[in-house]
């Protein structure tokens, strides 16, 4: 069972990456307009100047 010594930290680390990504996406306001974002990919106008806050 010694392998647990490696596996537990690894699993926590991987989970931590997910948590950090989630934290980043919230900070970066990725969830402000989910419906609009879903529709925007259908638009032919490429949005090359995202709004800066």
């Amino acid at each position, binding site marked *: *069972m010694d392998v*647990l010594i490696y596996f*537990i930290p690894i*699993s*926590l680390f991987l*989970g*931590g990456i*997910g*948590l950090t990504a*989630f*934290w980043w996406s*919230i*900070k970066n*306001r990725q*969830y*402000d*307009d*989910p*419906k*609009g974002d879903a*529709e*925007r990919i*259908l*638009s*032919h*106008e490429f949005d090359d*100047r995202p*709004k800066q806050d």
Partner: protein
Amino acid sequence: MTVSPAPSNTNEYEAERVSASACPACLAAPSAEQLAKSGDIKGARIMLSLPTAHCAVCITDVERELMKQPGVKSARVNLTLKRASVDAETGVEPVELIAALDRIGYESHELDAGMLSATEADKRGRDLLMRIGVAGFAMMNIMLLSVAVWSGAQDATRDLFHWVSAAIAIPTIIFSGQPFFASAYYSLRGGRLGMDVPISLAILLALGISLFETMHSGAHAYFEAATMLTFFLLVGRYLDYRTRAVARSAAEELAALEVPRATVLRDGVEVVVPVGELVVGELMRVRPGGRIPADGEVIEGHSESDRSLLTGESLPVQVGPGMVLSAGEVNLTGPLMIRVTAAGKDSSLHRMADLVAMAESAKTKYTSLAERAARAYAPIVHILSFTAFCAWAWVTGGDFRLAINIAAAVLIITCPCALGLAVPAVVTAASGKLFRKGLLIKDGTALERLAEIDTVVFDKTGTLTMGAPRPQNLSDLAPKALSVAMALAEGSSHPLARALHQGALGQGVTPAALDDLREVPGYGVEGHWQGQIVRLGRANWIGAEEGASTATHLKIGDETPVSIRFVDSLRPGAEEAVAGLAAQGKSVWLVSGDVEAAVADLAQRLGIAQYRAGALPMEKAQLVRDLTHEGRRVLMIGDGLNDTAALAGAHVSVSPASALDAARTASDIVLLGQDLAPIAEAARIAKRARHRIKENFAISIIYNAIAVPLALMGLATPLMAALAMSASSITVSLNSLRLR
């Protein structure tokens, strides 16, 4: 009018739970103050509400059109909130942007650019989301370790897993559990036993017991139950918050129609002052198109005044020196100089606000289903768990460790995970559905109250009708007369003139060339056409006979005057709404301040049996009260200041987005689009939603009925708690999504 003290920041979660229904009049007052302050900010950011936007094409169309406007730096549409935010240079007027969007076929309304509260609210939403994320991460990791324990990890391995779980769970609970702890603390301090008290107790007890067991190499630890509880309850809390935040920000930031400022003459100079600073006897100037800021007597100038929002009269009233005007009327054609006769507390606007406050206090406070459930639930949970502790301590002869373990298990099992999701999950699904149909739920309990109504009272002007006239007999006019009329109409901003111009434009008429076009305030427009004097305006000015219906008159030279009659066009969907509500078995009333003939005509057209004409604001409120006394639950739909008291007094109320600020504040639901048809649909959805909520309660009660006896007998294991908790939460969520 008393202004209730603003909730302090320390009490933020409690403050969040206080619904906006407390007192609409109080809410209206600070918003006016804020508006007065925000007026100083340089007009950099404009927010527009776009009730009809729904697709990718809408986004590009609106953004492209807005970017085309001079002075606009950037424009971005948020489809989720149905809003556009525009960064523009100072001097760009929202009215121009709204007109531009109207030309390409998009309805829009200005939102109050006092963005502070919106970003603040958004911050709290993101904060809750972050707590959910952390709790979710912890829950999944601890679950991985727990599965190992449940499948038979022993001794040192089990203890190691428990310790790792503790290391993850403790900081998670401290961070993610804060909303519950704060809320529980405030409700305890207020001497109440809210839903958050058993929640906090269960989370903390589960954590404490598990830590103790881990230290003593015990077999059972509830770390995953504690984090799972936090996770599911946070999801419920977030849904609840989102529903309210979205509705509140949009409904309350709709720009106030009442201008809280007035232009007064002080020492011969025009100064703009807040309405609150007006003094009796001062002279104020009101330009055409402006709203009268305070009651007063006309000193100078002729014009016409639109009282429809105050009294429901659809015809403008002629105004001249010596006439008394009330605050809230709209000056239509000529500039007026008015001496203030009543300001502040004595003004008619304030008397109206007092009426609203009275109606509001007379209304019995509504206890929502969730509140009633919590009120019954919280004591039972505490008593059960305490009894379990005492009984087991007595049976085992003082084995407190076992007794506390069982008491904690009871608390965890009964903890209202599914109960916490039962209401918000349904309300989120239902209000999302209604939002897509163009209805904003402002108050959390509005949906439940809407489900209970059996009587509907409609206002006429501005609610069932557009409050905008439409020319009726343009085809009777000779083409030449029509083009002259159109040219004259261009010279005025009077609603009838504008409607005539629009109507003629729609028929492809080109205006005739006129000279010396001038507006005679209060009477009409005059000009020269091919050497003849041509006039468009009031019957007595033209020399025509006064008719019964709304009309304007055209006279070319010495010819006999021609009347152009107008009808108030029906709001789209009015027929469907009335028919739909009647089909659901609700009795429909029409009540209006307008004259008998106009009201009777409309009632007949829509098939409304009961109507009342010439109703004063008090009488409208009285009708609603009488109906309520008869044991009916009334849905009031109105837009004017004269409806406000009735709106506040009704069981639930709806107002269109074009309504006065005070009316919107007093009502629970705001209709974003022009169409009235969604109201009937909303009543149906509300009924379904209420049914779903009750089903959800039944599901969580069944689950408790099975699990609680097991927990009381000491048979509950952490695995069982985890399974039952997630199973019931997921069942409840899925059941909510079935809402059609």
